[in-house]
């Protein structure tokens, strides 16, 4: 499966990019995070505290347990600070 993976705010800065295309067979968001962390130190660092990371799947806020079947875009970011 081919996913667009997006990073915002300090996640973007720590990982060093805002968007990448990822080939994966991960079943859930949590599985995808585990794959990314295993890849390189900068991902491992960015995802070290998952309590500080929020996720959206196809532009909808969701949980780490969300399945990835049929998904096109996953975004990771810190808690939002709008307003």
């Amino acid at each position, binding site marked *: 499966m081919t996913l667009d993976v997006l990073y*915002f705010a300090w996640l973007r800065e720590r990982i060093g990019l805002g968007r990448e295309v990822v080939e994966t067979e991960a079943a859930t968001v949590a599985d995808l995070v585990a794959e990314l962390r295993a890849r390189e130190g900068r991902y491992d660092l960015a995802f070290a505290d998952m309590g500080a990371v929020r996720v*959206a799947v196809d*532009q909808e806020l969701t949980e780490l347990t969300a399945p990835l079947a049929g998904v096109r875009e996953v975004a990771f970011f810190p808690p*939002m600070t*709008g*307003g």
Partner: protein
Amino acid sequence: MIRVAVQADDFDLAAEAAALERTGAGAVVTFTGIVRDVAGGLRWMEIEHYPAMTRSALEGIAAQAAERWSLTGATVIHRYGSLAPGARIMMVATASAHRRAAFEAADFLMDYLKSRAPFWKKEVREDGADWVAAKDDDEAALGRW
């Protein structure tokens, strides 16, 4: 009448309020957020957002407000980019026959915007830059609704 905008440019509060006044409302409430230099030395606030998601998130929040309160209109505008101290960051406006509905809906929109709209703020100061941390209070405020 729901209007949502995500833009780099400033907005015109008077025009937005006037449009809502014409919806048959008896009460129009507006909220404007302004860049504040809390600690001193703020050069600007950098506001990042998630373009593919931002509009639909704001529309979703506004639709929730319109479902919960009897509104004749609601407007949400949020800026992004580099904003100097004193600049307007965002506004919400609500219109209703009754003042309580207009106040509550505006208050609700603000609470949801703070924690559920995909914006992130970075303070760029003379001595460095930091992402603004989300406040526990803001997350807790959602429990009011």
